[in-house]
């Protein structure tokens, strides 16, 4: 009986030691991703939202013109998204983005990437597909006196 109780105690101690080691590894991982930045390994990720300095507020929208001539706002829901983050990320990384108040960075093959969005939209609207799709980006400087900036990039159907 004593031996059994002793073994149970040993097992419990070993279990706690293992949990303690896992906990230590978790804490080290949290500190490492916080110090290292980047996106981490979700859910081990740093909380970097709203951290970067900003010189301007940037808003962007997509507007399409169909072959029938109708103007349509192309929105996240057209791509099965319930939030705008995914589409904003695609546009920023594959098409173009306003980096700061002055710089407008157009990605290589930006028009082709816009065309991909137009093709996805047109697949769900086969009766009246897009003839063109325009990314409209407005940058509003936060410091008073600076003038707003407005850039557009358009894809046209071949």
């Amino acid at each position, binding site marked *: 009986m004593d031996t059994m109780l002793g073994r149970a105690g040993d097992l419990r101690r070993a279990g706690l030691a293992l949990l303690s080691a896992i906990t230590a590894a978790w804490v080290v991982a949290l500190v490492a991703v*916080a110090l290292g930045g980047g996106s*981490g390994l979700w859910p081990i990720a740093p*909380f970097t939202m709203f*951290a970067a*300095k900003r010189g*301007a507020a940037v808003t962007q929208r997509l507007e399409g013109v169909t072959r029938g001539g109708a103007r349509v706002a192309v929105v996240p829901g057209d791509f099965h998204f319930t939030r705008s983050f995914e589409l904003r990320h*695609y546009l920023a990384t594959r098409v173009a983005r306003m980096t700061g108040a002055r710089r407008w960075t157009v990605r290589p093959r930006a028009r082709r990437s816009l065309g991909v969005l137009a093709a996805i939209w047109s697949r769900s609207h086969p009766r009246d597909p897009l003839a063109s799709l325009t990314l409209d980006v407005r940058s509003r400087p*936060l410091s008073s006196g600076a003038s707003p900036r407005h850039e557009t990039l358009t894809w046209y159907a071949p």
Partner: protein
Amino acid sequence: VTSLARWQRFWFSPVPVRRVAALRVLIAAVALAQVAGSTSVTGQARADGVFYEPTGLVRVLGFSRPAPELVAGLRIALIVCLACAVVGLLTRVALGISAPLFIWLGALANSYGKVDHGAIVLAFALVALAVAPAGRAYSVDALVRRGGAHGESRLAGWAMRVVMVAVAYAYLSAAFAKLRAAGLGWPGGGAFQAALLEHATPLGLRLAHHPRLVEGLAAAALLLEATAWLAFLRGRVRDAWCVAAASFHLGALALLGVNFLPQVIALAAFYDLEVGAERVRARLSDARARRTWPRSPRRTSRRSACA
């Protein structure tokens, strides 16, 4: 006292099992509300593959992109498991399935370019609760066993600590990221003002036109994040910090539309939840007693009338 002993005491000090059980009810309920209330993960699964950029766990594990039907099925399984975890039915099994499912679906949801920070604390909390004896009170399991748990447990203490550390990490990591990116001048760095203009809520747009006020609120937010360690102190300092944190998240919801409700609920880990739960139970039985009390004299008077 050696560092190792301090470490063990910090993580494994026993706490009442009822405390971790009460936290289970709160965490599982808020996770259930979050998963059941959002269809974004099933929507993403139907999106074109061009948007898919597997990150984190999904990339490391090397899974291919799952079919929309599989994602929808797993979401329903997660909802069922979380509902079981709330009521404490087969608690350990329910939490044991919920935790990896929640993490995997969460990692999948983050594979479209946006890291969702709001669910991180929930993910860690579900893992910790799956390990802890979280079903030994306030649960169907406890009713079936016909015995509430009154004891203390080291694993319960560990689970509470994991949630506390996860909560504190969220704020401290956020403060560190801001200070590293912009230094002490972060409040005047435009990040908050730009966010107000871009998120464009009615209240946020009105506030954005008052740069001094925006800067003051940003400074208060940074101070709150950098002092998250205060929550580990007991008493009024902790209470004041937790109230400030809850107000901060309510403000973020109103001004930016950013929902960090799970983070607010997780603040409960810093409190002796079993005391609150017993108070609620006592009040409920008081109310029940008050409801039944007026009937007794009537019954008595009827009996005496009969006599």
